[in-house]
């Protein structure tokens, strides 16, 4: 008996229903990166896999947590479902499909299924063709904002979800809820990282 078959059999003997999904994922090892360990409330599974793989590519785990550690994909699912209008949701879904269609055309598969090299290559192209946000004044765009592509929008949401998370806000950036009188010119070295609020 081949080793692979034996492995399969021993798992089957163990017979645990709870193990079945992980068994499946081991057997389909090349697809492991698209596996979700949470159930989206508003996005479809495929849409959620796209969001998860995107936020993980944009903000991977380093010495600091990654976007998936901060559940940024789950946050985006909530924003999509609760903050977006019905028209906004429809437009977003169309853009997601177009994004994956471009990925398939160029690299033969939807984004979540690409190798990390191909993900990087694809996002570099998207970066260059995606439009930019206008500067903001008091929280809103200065000048009339031209439409911005899906990737830029998603990236912006990923940054928002990541940097407004409790772990990053309290323990990675500088948290100072009650700064006291404004000090306009102090050495950056005395502060270090960006203020979180």
């Amino acid at each position, binding site marked *: 008996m081949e080793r692979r078959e034996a492995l399969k059999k021993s798992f089957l003997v163990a017979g645990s229903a709870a193990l079945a999904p992980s068994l499946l994922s081991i057997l389909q090892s090349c697809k492991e990166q698209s596996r979700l360990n949470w159930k989206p409330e508003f996005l479809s599974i495929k849409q959620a896999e796209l969001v998860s793989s995107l936020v993980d*590519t*944009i*903000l*991977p785990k*380093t010495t*600091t947590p*990654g976007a998936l550690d901060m559940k940024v994909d789950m946050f985006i699912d*909530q*924003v999509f479902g*609760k*903050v977006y209008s*019905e028209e906004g949701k429809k437009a977003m879904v169309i853009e997601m499909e177009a994004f994956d269609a471009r990925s398939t055309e160029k690299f033969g598969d939807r984004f979540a299924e690409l190798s990390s090299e191909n993900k*990087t290559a694809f*996002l*570099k192209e998207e*970066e*260059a063709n995606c439009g*930019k*946000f*206008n*500067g903001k*004044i*008091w*929280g*809103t765009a*200065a*000048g*009339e904002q031209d439409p911005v592509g899906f990737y*830029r929008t998603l*990236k*912006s949401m990923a*940054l*928002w979800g*990541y*940097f*407004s*998370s*409790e772990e990053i*806000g309290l323990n990675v*950036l500088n948290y*100072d*809820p*009650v*700064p*006291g*009188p*404004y*000090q*306009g*010119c*102090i*050495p*950056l*070295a005395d*502060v*270090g*990282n*960006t*203020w979180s*609020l």
Partner: protein
Amino acid sequence: MANFNIDAKQNMTYDAIVIGSGISGGWAAKELCEKGLKTLVLERGRLVEHIVDYPTMNNDPWDLDLRGAATAEDMKDRQVVARSGFVGENNKHFYAKDSDNPYKEEKPFLWMRANQMGGRSLLWGKQCYRWSDLDFEANAKDGHGVDWPIRYKDIAPWYTYVEKFAGISGEALGLPQLPDSHFLPPMELNCVEKDVKTRIEKEFPGRNMIIGRVAHLTVPLNGRGQCQSRNRCDRGCPYGAYFSSNAVTLPAANATGNLTIRPFSIADSIIYDEEKGKAVGVRVIDSETKETIEYYARIIFSNASTINTTQILLNSTSNRFENGLGNDSGQLGHNLMDHTYRVGAMGKFDGHHDKYYKGRRPNGIYIPRYVNIDEKSKTDKFVRGFGYQGGAGRANWDAGANQEAFGAEFKDSLMTPGDWEFFITGFAECLPDYDNKVSLDKDNLDQWGRPTLVIDAEFKENELAINRQIQIDAVEMLEKAGLKEIVGFDNKHGMGYGIHEMGTARMGRDPKTSVLNATNQVHAVKNVFVTDGACMTSSSCVNPSLTYMALTARAANHAVSELNKKNL
């Protein structure tokens, strides 16, 4: 300061009625109560007690599932105020539901409403600038609108009076076009603002860049704490550091024992007695029960906010005043003004990479008007002028969205502050124009059976000409100040975005061309006073709230003096 007297049922008759509890209504209540008048404040929304009713004041982003964003469901009822970009989960309860208060926009007009005790005093920008004779003489000099019936000397002591109690921080500079207030210590400029200030003042003699003058305490005052630079003002301030009716004037009024506040009370109309030839009270609709109730008083102050005051006066008809109370001139509802908003420039500052700041200063810089202030600065492109607000700060992670980068290095780079950025945005004076108007729509009633409003107003050629200059000058100043990657912008906003509505019941010398006299009394009904933005005869280019405060205190003083002389 709990325990406001809200039991207006016991008593139908008061010495004074004040309609509205925002910036000007709060001042009217304080002044009248302190002078011994039993005063009823009619508030169309709910009670909002200082601190007690600020449920979100300490929220961090992660305390809310959506990190501060409001849901589509919440915003469905707030489609108008949503256009401002200011409304989110942490402050939505201070913005009125547009769906409850429909109005018709003949041309785009953003009417920002905050229907609760304190009104927009909970949400305002706190920028406070005295007007000067450049403003009070403008109409007389260039012939637009009618002459103000007052001059700077008439209001100057009242500016001082309200500033001492409200608490205005700023720096005294002795500029004739922007008189100094009675100041608390100024807030600090940051390093880039200091550099830009030096360069602009050197390159452009006659122009100044100063720290904003604001109603934030920089030292404690009357039991209120100083600003802690949290910049969470629009949720209510636990320190009472910024001026609001809730934290400042209404508690003072309440302390006299003379104040009664009636919430959920929509002022339907002012009751005019034909025989007595004066107003005798206010007809109120309870917004919850829809019951109509009449309250009576010897004097009435209308401080419902510019457009709401106009609605009340237009809706107060009688045989004597078929077209609205005090509308003999036909000017009531006309001459609506606002300031232009979001025209300017932004850029990056190369330098001070090793510098940062501490605190989220709820204030910025101000560039006072420098055009058309004397013969030398005169332009033939437009009359009147403009000023700029703005500021510098370092970009944070938010700027990462536009960077053509992603991945490990990108993420780690966003942990430290980014580029220094600086912007200025202009506020143009708006001319009084008869065609910019508010009128009643008797065919469309609101849920309380009152005629709704039609707003028909737009910026005209003079304002647009000023806006063009604002953008040209903004780009030029940023260039000369050494900024890089400069972008000029013009959001081409319609009226309303400045949230400085003014002018629809203007003061004037002649009852034939104005609604109010020099002490804010309706010309033909002397016991009715209007001291909110409706009273303004011109718009200046500076923020108007401080002037509403001063005019209100001045009018209240006059009212009580006239009452004592039995003239009202």
